[in-house]
Every structure is written in C-alpha cells, then in structure tokens.
C-alpha cells in the first residue's frame, strides 16, 4: 500500500539541511516582533494611542508613503519599460544606476538629496529662485526622500514583469492597428498589472518605513516631517514605552495592508 505513505510524502520528506535553517530563519524574523508584543504597555495602550502625536505621525506616514508610491508609479513604470523594452546604449549602466538607492545607506541618499535639492543645491537653488520653492524640511521633502529610496523596488519589480511578459501579444495588438502607446496602455500594462501591484506594495512598504533619508533631507518636525519611524526613534530616547506603542501601530498597519494586498492581487498572480 503506497497510498497513505504518498499522501504525506512531500511534507515528511523535507530534508533536514533545509528544514533547520528554515525554522531558524523564521524564528529570527518573528521573534523580535514577538518581543515587541511581549513588552508592550497593554494597560496604558488605549490612552497612548489616542495621543495626538501618535495619530499625527501615523497620518503623515500614510499620506506621504501613498503619495511617494504614486510618484514612483508615475515615473517608475515608464522607466522600467525603457529599461526592459528598448536597446538604449549604456542600458546596463542605467540599470545599475537605478538600483543604487537600494544599496546606498539612506542617510547618504538624504545627504545627496540635500546637495541637489537643498536651497543651495544644484537644482534646489534654481527651484527657489524661479518659483520660491524649497523642498528640504517640508512634507513634500518627506515624499521626495521616500520616493528616492523606494522607487528602485518598483522599477525592479515592473522591469522583471515586463521581461517575463510574452511580447507576441504586443505584436498581435500591433497587427490589429494599435499604436505603440495604445499597445502599452491596453495590452502591456494590463498583462503586467500583477507585477506592477507587487512592486507598488513593496514600494509603499519601503516608503512607510523610510527613516535615514527622511530625517536627513526633511528633518524631524512634528506634524510636518515627523513620520512614524522618526517618532519611534525620538521616543526611544525619552519614553521607551511610547516607542513600543508607535512601533506596534506601524507594525499593525503594515501587516494589515500587506496581507490584504497580497491575498487580493500579489498572491493571485
């Protein structure tokens, strides 16, 4: 009788050299979160959550991360298309440059942004002289910092989806009379939609957790540039319990949003 043995086969036969590190890895990722839950000041949690400082930081975080994601979509999807579908000279260098913010320490990214977009920066000085616009230490600056750090996640995900997509569908659309823009809008984009959504989710999550570039470029002004990660860091110095509460809120929001999106779109892809 091989039936019953077979039924539990794959699970029973997970090799040890895979299982042990896998479980260790899982513990490594989950234990810190458990620690957060264990040390949370549950008794005073409701009143702490109602503090305007917490709500303000949460609102700012959600708004800036969402706007930053929108900006990344608007600029990143076309950029990904350019990298995936054209034969630009120096495309390999371009692709490397696009991924630089991934490996760059975010603080360095913030410094770089200041040098370019700061009031005395290359582009910033012109922006200020011509339009009276100054980005550093503003909410817009937060969005800029978050978008800078998060965009590579979107570009890489969308570029991957574009490369994996079957280009013959685009040829079929062309024979039906579709211009290249129509092909992109009505065939390419719908076909890579799962990849775009996955990229957008990653991008949003990265923007939500952004710290280094934001504090360097936008500063730490409550209500204006103080996002949740910044508030956590600040609270850690003065009121560790508050830091834990803020972290829990950030954690809860991320998990709810990511789990919701994953099941709806990413998982279905």
């Amino acid at each position, binding site marked *: 009788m091989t039936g019953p043995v077979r039924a539990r086969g794959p699970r029973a036969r997970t090799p040890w050299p895979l299982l042990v590190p896998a479980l260790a890895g899982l513990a490594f990722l989950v234990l810190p979160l458990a620690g957060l839950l264990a040390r949370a000041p549950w008794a005073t949690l409701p009143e702490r959550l109602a503090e305007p400082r917490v709500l303000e930081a949460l609102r700012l975080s959600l708004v800036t991360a969402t706007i930053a994601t929108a900006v990344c979509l608007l600029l990143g999807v076309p950029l990904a298309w350019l990298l995936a579908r054209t034969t630009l000279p120096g495309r390999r260098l371009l692709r490397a440059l696009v991924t630089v913010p991934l490996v760059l320490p975010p603080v360095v990214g913030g410094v770089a942004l200041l040098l370019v977009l700061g009031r005395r920066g290359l582009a910033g000085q012109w922006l200020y002289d011509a339009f009276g616009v100054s980005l550093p230490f503003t909410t817009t600056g937060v969005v800029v910092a978050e978008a800078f750090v998060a965009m590579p996640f979107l570009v890489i995900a969308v570029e991957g989806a574009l490369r994996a997509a*079957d280009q*013959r*569908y685009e*040829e*079929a*659309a*062309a*024979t*039906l*009379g*579709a*211009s*290249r823009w*129509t092909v992109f809008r*009505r*065939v390419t984009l*719908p*076909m890579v*939609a799962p990849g775009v959504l996955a990229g957008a989710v990653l991008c949003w999550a990265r923007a939500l957790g952004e710290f280094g570039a934001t504090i360097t470029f936008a500063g730490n002004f409550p209500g204006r540039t103080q996002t949740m990660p910044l508030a956590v860091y600040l609270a850690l110095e003065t009121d560790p319990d508050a830091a834990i509460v803020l972290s829990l809120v950030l954690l809860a929001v991320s998990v709810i949003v990511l789990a919701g999106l994953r099941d709806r779109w990413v998982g279905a892809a």
Partner: protein
Amino acid sequence: MSMEAHLVVERPAFRLDVELRAAAGEVVALLGPNGAGKTTALRGLAGLTALSGGRVELDGAEVHHLPPERRRIGVVFQDYLLFPHLSALDNVAFGPRCQGLGKAAARRVAAELLDRVGLAGHADVRPGRLSGGQAQRVALARALAVRPRLLLLDEPLAALDAHTRLVIRAELRRHLADFDGATILVTHDALDAMVLAHRLVVIENGAVVQTGTPSEIARHPRTDYVARLVGLNLYRGEADGNHVVVGDVRFSSAERLTGPAFVAFPPSAVALYRTRPDGSPRNLWQAVIDGIERHGDNVRVHLHGPIPLLADVTPAAAADLDLTPGRQVWAAVKATETHAYPA
C-alpha cells in the same frame, strides 16, 4: 485586394528569399518543413520582422516601409495570442477600436463577427475559458474585424486535436471563401494546404522549390519533401522516349519525354513478389526490405536496392510474403500508374 511581395530576410546561417503573389479572393498556402522560413515570411509580410530587402505591395501600393499597425494586414497567430485580460467580445473589438470606432460601435462589429463564427453565446468569456476550437474562431474573428486587405494564417489548425481540426478546417474553408482579400496560409500539413488553398507555394531552406495548384503538386512533386508530403515515390532520372532511367532501374511510362525527368508513383502501385513474377516484367527490380509499419488499412513496406522505395501491400499479402527485414523480394510497378514529367 491583391498582394505581391518579394521577401528577403538575412540571418546568420539562414537566408529567406521568396516571391509571393496572391490575387483578391485567392488562398495561397505556404508549405514547407520546419525551419524552412514560412513563419519568417509571414512575419515579414505583417511587418513584425524587418526585411533585409525586397518589397511588399498591396493593390500596387508599397507597404513594406510601414509599421505593422498601419498595414491593415490581419494575422491569425499559431497559438492565437488572444489577450487574456479581455473578453472574447473585447478581443474582437480591439481592432475596430484602434481604427477609431467608439466603444459601442466596435462592440457591435465584434458581436456580429462572433455571431458569424458561431460564438455569439461566448462574448463575455475570457480566452482562458475557451476551448481550442473556440479560441481559433475568436482569433479569426479578431483578424477579420479590422477588414484586412491581406489575411495571414500561421498554422491555424496546428494547435487543435484531430476531431476539432476536421470541423474547424471545414469552417475555415467557408470563411476564407467569404473573404474578398488575399489570404496567405502557412502550414506544414499537406491536407490543410490541399483543402484550404487554391495554390501552393512550397519553400525549403528559405527558397521556393515548387508552386502550383494542389492537384498539380499532388501529381508532380519536384522534391523529396513534397513527394513525402503527398505520399508518392519520386525519382529523378534521364528520359529517352517512353523510358526514364533512374540508376539501374528503367521505368516505362505513358508520357514521351527526353532529357532530365522525374518519375512518380504511389506506394500502392508497387507489387512485391517472393520470386521473379512471370509475364511482362516491366518496371521490375530486386529490393531488400528495411522495415514495415501500419499505414491505414494496409502495411507500408520500406525497401532499399538500386533505388529506395515505399510499397503498400494488404495485410493478407504481407502475411503471404513473410516480410522480414533483410529479405530480398521482387518489386514491380504498374506502368499505368507511373507518371513521368520533365525535371
């Protein structure tokens, strides 16, 4: 709407150089083995593969410098390539929409075409839920929806199972008869080509090796590939009067010829004997059995000797003859079924 084209596509280790013509309402089959360049030729016509040289003319106007979206050439791709995110109706409406029709008008056109291919009830179905035959019909409707000047079909029946193929082949024949533009059909299946096309163009290794009506090609193949395709034995030899000499074998035939000539006859025209037959031994030689296989209701015997040969014998005859590989037999071909024609 007539089409005239000279297609040249150069690749490393491959060169396609073919001339194609199709009159309005004519169906031309591009027939050839895998890798012959059939699909490349089709892509060249559609503008999906750049030509290294030559030209494509529709009704006398050059279109080879136009991008595919401006040629108005309908293509039915081998695996249909229906857009997976659009319903059957919207797949068909895609072309009319691109031609500037409003959403409602485009859908009306699409609904009418779906009705014509017998899929009015499947308008809202996504391609993933269509059967192979249904997807083929939607693909045809989608290609026809742009009112193409030229219709290109790339192995339109290859992805279908045997029964569906039969049904769709008959349907396709009807739809092509209704289509007033020129049609080019790419296939490696002789039957599809014979049933659907008015004229065949056979290409091998990127060049045209034979053209003609299905009946011409079926009777007078000029290459081994075509002969295999139409199921004939084919030899090239030297004719003098009523004889064609192929190697050591002398064929007599009804036609009078001189110079280089082909001899063709069906495997069923061959009779096999264990001993030298009596009577008038024309077209007779000794051959050695290589192997046997089932072929329809008969047994197909592969032989070698002075010339390679296929022979079809009845199972009863096969049993009497004791056809084992390596056995020597006498092969005779009826002169009345032997065709000779100039090479």
